[in-house]
């Protein structure tokens, strides 16, 4: 059989190319385009070079949002990863309760993000919400629309409630993949419960935890919907994370140049930090 050479086969790639072009390349290039130009409306654009980038990088407002963003991501990673692992460790390894646990764990992940925000908003209302009312009744002054600390507490709690399950499911999958012989060998070697965790379970979960940390990092770094619905970035700017700030600049103030430059910086930052995480966490395995 002879091979037929036919360049028309390239047409098969066309649909994908169109799709990628319209949902990734063109929008991204539009943003790049905006980020280096100034406009006063009427579709008139003037090239400005790196002016917007310099403005963004020098602005107090951006520094503030960036700092809050890193704090938020740091806090939820520090809570969700250990908590997720701890929950996964207490889940049964076999039996009818496994599916019950898995379904319970998957539930928060199935709820749309704006619904999560709305749920927690109602729950945290100081006068009628279960959480807000309860805390105030206990004598703890709590009002997430007035006190920055309460707002932070609520946003973090909401994210932990929403996303710890993801870490749990990944960690559980990692735990389940450990052959029974490892536990038997550990028993024979007289290992303590902590040693089993430290030398068997944790190393075996390494890979899935890398994925969990990466996913949670990227997702939380781009968080928008839930805090937007819950606090709208307030009180003041106290829960204005990067994406909320970006939307404010782009749609609230119609500062296209600033917003575009911020988007590009934001995008490169997410990419960079993810890459650093990935390299650091997989470095040990290549030896």
């Amino acid at each position: 059989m002879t091979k037929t050479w036919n360049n028309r086969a390239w047409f098969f790639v066309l649909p994908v190319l169109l799709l990628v072009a319209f949902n990734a390349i063109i929008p991204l290039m539009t943003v790049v385009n905006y980020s280096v130009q100034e406009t006063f409306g009427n579709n008139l654009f003037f090239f400005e070079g790196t002016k917007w980038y310099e403005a963004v990088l020098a602005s107090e407002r951006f520094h503030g949002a960036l700092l809050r963003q890193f704090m938020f991501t740091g806090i939820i990673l520090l809570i969700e990863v250990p908590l997720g692992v701890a929950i996964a460790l207490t889940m049964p390894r076999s039996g009818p309760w496994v599916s019950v646990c898995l379904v319970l764990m998957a539930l928060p992940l199935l709820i749309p993000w704006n619904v999560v925000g709305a749920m927690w908003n109602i729950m945290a209302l100081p006068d009628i919400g279960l959480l807000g009312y309860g805390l105030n009744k206990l004598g703890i002054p709590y009002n997430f629309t007035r006190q920055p600390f309460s707002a932070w507490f609520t946003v973090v709690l909401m994210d932990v409630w929403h996303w710890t399950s993801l870490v749990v499911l990944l960690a559980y999958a990692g735990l389940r993949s450990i052959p029974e012989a490892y536990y038997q060998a550990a028993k024979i070697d007289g290992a303590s419960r902590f040693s089993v965790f430290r030398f068997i379970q944790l190393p075996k979960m390494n890979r899935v935890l890398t994925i969990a940390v990466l996913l949670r990092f990227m997702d939380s770094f781009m968080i928008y919907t839930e805090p937007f619905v819950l606090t709208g970035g307030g009180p003041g700017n106290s829960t204005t994370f990067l994406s909320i700030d970006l939307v404010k600049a782009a749609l609230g103030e119609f500062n296209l140049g600033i917003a575009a430059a911020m988007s590009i910086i934001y995008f490169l930052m997410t990419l960079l930090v993810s890459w650093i995480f990935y390299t650091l966490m997989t470095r040990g395995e290549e030896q």
Partner: protein
Amino acid sequence: MARIDLDNIRHAYMPAPKRDEDFALKRVHHTFDDGGAYALLGPSGCGKTTLLNIMSGLLRPTEGKILFDGRDVTGLSTEERNIAQVFQFPVVYDTMTVYDNLAFPLRNRGVAADEIDRRVTETLAMIGLAERARQKARGLTADDKQKIALGRGLVRSDVSAILFDEPLTVIDPHMKWVLRSQLKELHRRFSFTMVYVTHDQTEALTFADQVVVMNEGEIVQIGTPEELFERPNHTFVGYFIGSPGMNVLPVVLDGAVARIGSHVMTLPGATGPVGAQRTELGIRPEYVRIGREGIPVTVERVEDVGRRKIVHASIDGHPLAAIVPEDEAVPAEPHVRFEPAGINVYADSWRMDLGEAS
């Protein structure tokens, strides 16, 4: 080191076993002598791993007692029994170095640091991993990992016994042979009580002084490799050991005469009165001689396996294998004779003693 007595052990994986079939281990009553090298041989699912896990304490038997040097340890945990076990897939602690892997069981037992160092260094030399001591266990080959797993047992010089659960399954054929000889050597030097589970007859026969053959949750025969080969106690042992396995032909017995279909042959001895439903004659292919005299057979095919040939024939439809030397031709009208030394007679699958021929 210890003597291990299994006192009427029965085990079932289901909660309320009633019938005999419910038991994965039907009834095992046996003693493993101090310092012996034993193999538990049998097909998959015959209960050998169950028996091993009962000895190591990972499983608690449904019934029966287990004694180490006369002390009842049935209720004791693995750790208290002081047993070492090597599993089918090499278990190593990936993030530790080879040295730390071996030190781990000692550190868990609170042994003093200089004592740990002495024993680990000694064991590393024993298993030939001294140069790799500082290397992480993660990057090692499967056979080195299995050596570490073995080393973690050996390092505890006071272990009651070392149990092996098909430890060479994932090892390259060439390394299998090396590791097996090393095990044998270690056994000779330190005379640990070793129990080795396998479904590979070569492994069992080369490793052990005494082979325990199991089938369907029962011990069918315990013996030296020669005994298993020459005098299989049960037709199962005949089939299972040897390559090809023993020929088993249905016969009608009448004193010192056996009738195979319409053919008659003389046995080396007479059987007593036979009350069994089914009587059979067992003969290993090694003891079947092909020539011009004896019982006529039909040759179906000849398999050349290097220095010898396996002749697959049949007597009145019953298959019969024979081994002939490479250079010997099969005659045109083949007949077979059985060497008297290789003849065994079975009643309901169990071997009968043949008395002296009168």
